[in-house]
């Protein structure tokens, strides 16, 4: 049952500050998360969340790398829009 919670789906690349970053998409049930592979840094896991006003925002999991999550999250949003 729980094995369906974790399915590695796909990979794509975004350009962040002139550097190509590999992004892996992971699904936990209905929750989609994005693993960002950063050269020389610990990988960053980000996801879309809803704030108290039901507006969507990008956040890092675990907490602590919010700015990076927002910057790279926007690039992921652009990539998804382009590939739709």
């Amino acid at each position: 049952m729980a094995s369906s919670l974790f399915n590695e789906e796909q990979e794509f690349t975004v350009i962040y500050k002139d550097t190509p970053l590999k992004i892996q998409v992971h699904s936990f049930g209905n929750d989609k998360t994005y693993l960002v592979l950063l050269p020389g840094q610990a990988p960053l896991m980000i996801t879309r969340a809803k704030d108290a006003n039901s507006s969507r925002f990008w956040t890092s999991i675990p907490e602590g790398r919010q700015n990076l999550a927002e910057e790279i999250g926007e690039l992921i949003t652009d990539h998804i829009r382009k590939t739709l």
Partner: protein
Amino acid sequence: MCYYNGVKVTRAEYLRLKHLEKLISDYSILDKPLVEGPLYNMKYPVLKPITGKEDFEIVDMEWGFLPNENEWPFLKNRLEVDRWRRGYTDETGRWHNGYTTLNAMSEYLFVNEKGRPSMFRKAAMERRILIPSTGFFEWRHLPQIGKKGQVLKATNKIPYFIYLPENLNSGNPFYMLGIWNSWTDSETGEYSETFAITTTEANSLMRQVHNSKNRMPSISVSEDIAWEWLFGKLSKERILEIAKIQFPAGKMWAHSIDKKFKESVDPTLPVEYPDVEPLIKAA
């Protein structure tokens, strides 16, 4: 309201993100489709409040509540724990039954069935947790008829998987209520955190499935109740009230599964048995 990464989010969203954290950091634990209590061989992730904060961490605990080593039954080491849980034969050949603390009956959280202070009372007041789950398993006992038409003593046991369709379809867990306690092996110094799931009277669905005991786990019916159970400064009366809440049968469902489900890759797969009365759905 709570804050995640400095952004104001609802309690439900906070719980979802925290749970996601755990799945990411240690998804192999939740990847196990079946946690079998009576074998006492697995730890299980639970939501445990951080002392002094309205926040929690997700930690692995041993399922099977152990009282403090200086309280009855004064368990000093793992051998004594094992004997207490599973039962044993003493030097004179006398058998001592095992004592199960996988569950804590909500009715006996403070005063036990003999009218004495319960071993769970301090944990119920001070150490309450939530146990995420995607479903659980119980046996339905059906009468067997002998060749002469008589009802046999042995029953036909059919296993069932019980779940909340809304949660299962969305891939989100639901939360059972529990209590925890720490125990230290006085010989090796091994420190363990152990828990019991609180139980309540079965609802109309569970009365059909778990018909030998008519019990079911206490399940959080809302995020506010989950929050209150974790962080509330509650009176005994309120603790009992919450632990006794019966999750509505109409939001639950169950299907029969393979009798060898414990050995199955996916123990939740539906299996139909001829001559077994279908369950009656609550309105």
